[in-house]
């Protein structure tokens, strides 16, 4: 593992912990942006350049902007109230540990002995250029590609339906937020 990889991975993991750990959602969001960027870096290191770009644009860009927008809109403070109980935290970490070990164990065991030669060769083949991916998207995965448009459409319509309020009186409690169309 190269130094570069190590650093980026470390940033990714640290920022992931940050997302979970920061009490202020805004800090979490910024931490997540960092996390997504570091993942993009890992993609780039793995040779998936198209994905690395998409990751920055779609995730770190579009999605996170949306998240931040909503966060600002709702103008939220840190999580209030009771802290999470120690038992629950321990339980959660324990469960996480079990999942991590049971999932990663066989996975790592399976792929440790791949010969470097095949890997080198494969890396060449999986250079994620735009062209190669584009060919797949419009060839082998055309149906899925078309279907993904349906996913986006659902996203749009769904958001409209939930956010748009027609013929509905706002209760005083939600008065402040009436602005969202």
């Amino acid at each position, binding site marked *: 593992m190269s130094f570069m990889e190590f650093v980026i991975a470390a940033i990714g993991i640290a920022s992931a912990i940050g997302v979970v750990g920061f009490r202020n959602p805004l800090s979490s969001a910024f931490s997540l942006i960092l996390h997504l960027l570091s993942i993009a870096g890992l993609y780039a290191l793995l040779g998936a350049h198209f994905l690395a770009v998409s990751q920055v644009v779609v995730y770190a860009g579009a999605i996170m902007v949306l998240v931040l927008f909503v966060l600002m809109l709702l103008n939220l403070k840190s999580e209030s109230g009771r802290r999470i109980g120690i038992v*629950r935290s321990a*339980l*959660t970490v324990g*469960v*996480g540990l*079990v*999942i991590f*070990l*049971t*999932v990663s*164990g*066989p996975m790592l*065991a399976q792929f440790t002995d791949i010969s470097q030669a095949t890997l080198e060769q494969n890396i060449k083949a999986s250079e994620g250029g735009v062209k190669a991916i584009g060919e797949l998207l419009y060839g082998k995965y055309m149906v899925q590609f078309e279907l993904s448009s349906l996913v986006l459409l659902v996203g749009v319509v769904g958001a409209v339906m939930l956010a748009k309020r027609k013929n509905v009186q706002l209760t005083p409690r939600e008065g402040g937020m009436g602005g969202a169309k």
Partner: protein
Amino acid sequence: MEDTRLALVVLVPLIGAILSYALGRAAPKLAGILATAAVATSFYFVVSLWSSLEGGESFTFTLSSWLSFADVKLPLEIYFDKLSAVMCLVVTGVGSLIHLYSVGYMAEDESRPRFFSYLNLFIASMLILVLGKSLPVIFIGWEGVGLCSYLLIGFWYTNSDFASAGRKAFVMNRIGDLGFIVAMAILYHACGSLDITTLSRPEILARIPSEMGFIAGIALFLAATGKSAQLPLFTWLPDAMAGPTPVSALIHAATMVTAGIYLMARMYGVIELDPVVPAVILWTAFATSAIAALIAISQNDIKKVLAYSTVSQLGFMFLAVGVGAYSVALFHVVTHAFFKACLFMSAGSVIHGCHHEQDMRRMGGLARSMPITCLSYGAATLAIAGIAPFAGYFSKHAILDSLAHVHNPYLHSYSELIGFGATAIAICTAFYMTRSFILTFLGSYRGEGHPHEAPLVMTAPVLVLAALSVGGGLALNHSFFTYLQGPLPPVAHHAGGGTLGYVLGSIPGLIGIAAAYALFVVAPALKDTIRKVLWIGEKLSSGKFYLDELLGLLVIAPIRVLSGVFSRVLDQSVSIGTGNAIGGISRAVGELTCRVTTGQVSTYVLWMFASAALLLYCFLPVR
């Protein structure tokens, strides 16, 4: 030989039962007449059948195929032979007299139709009992008379005690019936038939295994103890006096209670399979007879005296059964029917005349106001006391005599003791019967109001029976035993004839009478002295030997307790409680299961992860 008259013997009283109720509701007076006529008609048919009975032949009649299916053959058949003839004659003969008597006795009761209907039903049942060709058919009558007895004891049902007495009679009879059913089961499986003609054949009886023979014999005797009021099941009979007096006369003296004797006589082959059984019968009879006689001494209710006397006399009959003298026992049945019916009916007249007073302490001196009744009661008393030549003398003497000829290995060495004891009981009988006569008819009247003689419709049958009590024994003495030699084993002896024999045979009775006269008329003071000296005996006697209490403690109380425990503890907590518990537990677990759903997403996610972790941990081959 099929004979339709046989069917009519049974059916006429049955029809009478229906008609007397149906028509009696419209015209109450008609009920008694119809019922009496029905029984009399039945009597007529019995006599006509009896007269056409020759030699060893018999009549049968099949009413229905009843329990016949596949290879089971148990038709509803009735059968008339000499033994049945004797019983039938007594039942219908004495029965018609008592019916006639009841017309007078019940004249003022508004429920007459019901009464006569029951009474006729009883006659029909009793006839089925004595005519049944197979044990199940006998059982029909056996239970039928039990039912009628129950209904008639509780005839005045608005009094709870009377109704309870009826129930007691029925239940105690039922205990005996268990024996009947067991005996039927054993005999059916061993012999393949329950027909009495088959069951009297030695080669058939030989098929019964020995231990089963013992059980069958004991079981049959248990049945007889229930019906014929022997230890330990006799306490119902005194209580049965709650019924109208004609009922006591008919059912609880003359007919029904002798059904046990009849059964023993019919099934003597089974009884004698194992010699232990007769021994048991004899000792039970002896004890019953003695205890009943002792209790009778201290009773003040005139009907109770007669009731205990009946029990005692039934014990006497069983003594004869125990030694194998069945025709002697039956002879006593017949004479007992005469004099005991006469006694009861006379007592009924007394009660009727004294405005339903039954306590002898409030009677006395009735000889003046009711001479006819006094006469008949006196004659019957002499008969039961065993004074020659009254009827009771012959039968009682025959019994005492037969006791001397015991062949049973289990009894052989006790024959003197039994003979002596039986004589003592005979003395006792004479004593308490004389006592009751003295208390009722002699001295001066101690009650209120004016006692009066019964009307003719009552006195006439009483007189007929009194006459039979006087002369019946003498008339039948010799012919009876020979007559019954077909269906029953022959009896070795004949009651002592000749004047000397009469006098000697009457001695026990005379002793009893004399003692009673001495104590109650000549020297009443002596009575109290004796009472003081024998206080324990007095206590036992007047307390009826505490048999009811004993029974209550040993049988009824445990059953009560068991019943309570079963219903409250076992049933409520175990049977029903288990169901409730299972329901409760599943509901509680369900509640817990729901509690997982806290409504908070984080918890749900945690559960999801934990479950996934569990799945992974459990089902992955490598960890």
